[in-house]
């Protein structure tokens, strides 16, 4: 899909030099942000990026391969708790905790992907639904280890003395670093023939397999990778929140992930960034509009988006750009 972004940008008047400048400008903005923006906003932006990483994962599973997963919250929680438990019980460094979360989420996600080979659409959605509602009971059952219902408080990463940064800023940079790496990995993964194979699996699985694409192999792999991203996102979210508890990982979160990914743009990596913003800001925005009807506002936004922008914000943007370019060619 990023081929499309490149196409959209590349076929236009943007020369490689201009593109380079644009990336540099974006980098400067991202890096400079915490220095100019109030601490609270920096804190929220860390959340945006953590969510965005998880959203990339869901985008891989649902957007590229077309497997509907309502269980993304489970892997987000898995990553968060893996990281939390490793820090609390084994004194692991917070950066290492992210890698641990990634490994565990990948393995579990990979295994969870096996049912996906046989089930389509609605039935897969239901199995993932079971995953989603299992999170709280499992956490509560092993409450001696996990802290149960009240959850566990974590120590948030402290900035080293020599940087002179605030805690919020330091966390922001840590999360940013991981987010950039994940973005880059995801972009490269779906570029070229792998991306095409994935799209083929989503649109015409029979045809794809008859052409030699290892459909089942890809499905399990994507589940693993997507879940890994969710786990990384969960671990990163720990940095900013400093707390894990079963109420943070309900079915509602899964629904929100799915909604955010769709609004951001299914099948686009950039859409994940919009998804991250959606997840961080919309719930508050909805309660501001109407305290009681926050859910209705949220629901209304979803429905409106499906009516007017079914490809999501990023997807529609890319589509419009391509249409404009085509019109120019004619």
């Amino acid at each position, binding site marked *: 899909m990023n081929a499309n972004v490149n196409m959209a940008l590349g076929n236009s008047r943007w020369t490689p030099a201009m593109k380079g400048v644009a990336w540099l400008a974006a980098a400067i903005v991202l890096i400079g942000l915490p220095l100019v923006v109030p601490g609270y906003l920096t804190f929220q932006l860390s959340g945006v990026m953590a969510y965005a990483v998880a959203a990339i994962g869901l985008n891989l599973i649902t957007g590229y391969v077309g497997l509907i997963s309502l269980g993304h919250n489970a892997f987000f929680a898995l990553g968060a708790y893996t990281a939390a438990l490793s820090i609390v019980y084994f004194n692991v460094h917070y950066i290492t905790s992210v890698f641990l979360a990634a490994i565990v989420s990948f393995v579990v996600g990979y295994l969870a992907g096996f049912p996906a080979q*046989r089930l389509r659409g*609605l039935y897969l959605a239901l*199995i993932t639904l079971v995953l989603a509602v299992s999170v709280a009971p499992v956490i509560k059952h092993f409450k001696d280890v996990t802290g149960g219902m009240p959850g566990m408080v974590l120590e948030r990463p402290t900035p080293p003395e020599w940087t002179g940064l605030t805690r919020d800023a330091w966390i922001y940079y840590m999360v940013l670093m991981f987010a950039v790496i994940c973005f880059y990995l995801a972009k490269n993964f779906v570029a070229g023939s792998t991306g095409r194979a994935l799209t083929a699996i989503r649109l015409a699985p029979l045809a794809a397999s008859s052409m030699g694409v290892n459909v089942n192999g890809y499905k399990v792999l994507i589940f693993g990778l997507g879940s890994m991203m969710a786990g990384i996102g969960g671990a990163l979210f720990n940095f900013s929140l400093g707390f894990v508890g079963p109420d943070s990982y309900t079915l509602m979160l899964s629904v929100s992930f*799915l909604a955010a990914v769709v609004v951001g743009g299914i099948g686009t990596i950039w859409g994940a960034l919009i998804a991250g913003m959606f997840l961080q800001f919309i719930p508050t925005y909805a309660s501001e509009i109407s305290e009681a009807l926050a859910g209705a506002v949220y*629901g209304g936004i979803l429905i409106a988006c499906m009516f007017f922008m079914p490809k999501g914000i990023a997807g529609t943007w890319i589509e419009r750009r391509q249409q404009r370019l085509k019109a120019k060619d004619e």
Partner: protein
Amino acid sequence: MMVCVLHTWETEMDYLLQQLLNGVTIGAVYASLGLALVLIYRTTNIANFAQGEMATFSAFLTWQLTQWGVPIVLSILIVIVISAIIGAVVYAILVRPVQYKDEMTIIIVTLGLFLAFNSTTGAIWGYMQKTSPTPFPDVVWMMGNVRVSAELVSFILVLVAISFGLFLLFQKTRLGNALRAAASNAQSAQLVGIPYTKMMILGWGMAAGLGAVSGALVSSRLSLDPNMMADVIIYGFASAVIGGMSSYVGVVVGGLIVGVSKSMTIAFLPALGADLQIMVPLVLIVAVLIVKPEGLFGKTVAARV
């Protein structure tokens, strides 16, 4: 000594039976919502995630009517009609524009409806629990040492009546055939003169009416609160999926399986603890789907290419 042994056995058998009946009672509740889900799925090919929340809304409407002095049974009947209208309107305005789009879009819209209905119910009536008057007589019969409540019998009767009614409608009437035809092939249906949109509206309306019945059953057991259907919907889907999404008998059987497995787990596996017990029926669903993806009663239709 002999007497003591016999007595213990007797109690355990009674306990088993009692739990079985409990399971059947809850299972009937799940099946009732499952029926509404299957109805919408079979007539419109859409899995309506908002079905439970619409049923909750109906249950609250019923409560409201009783607060205004309308007798409970009449309230339920009136609300069934109102719910059917609401279902029809929701379809016509919010679902029809997107019904041909991909699965994802439709799922998101139904999830949006879920949120909207849930929130609206809470906004109108608040989140304090209320008790809803029950339409069922508060009678309990004893069969040996086992308690059989009028509630249980009523649930079963309602369930059987609905399933039978649906069976008659779909298999034996012209309208039923038309509904199935419309779901099977929209274009061909129009070409034989079936007004496709009207069929869809009918399907959603009926399902919403059914949902109202389900809401009535649930609220007679639990106290009334906006989130009461949140669990039921999952078990409702489970019943439908185990049954195979295409058979009303299947849903009922599926519901009973889910309900009984739940009550049996609570009764005989206390070691698992309250939290994990909820998961046993869910794990059961997963197992069924992995082994027989089309459900127990579903048929895989070979697609002739």
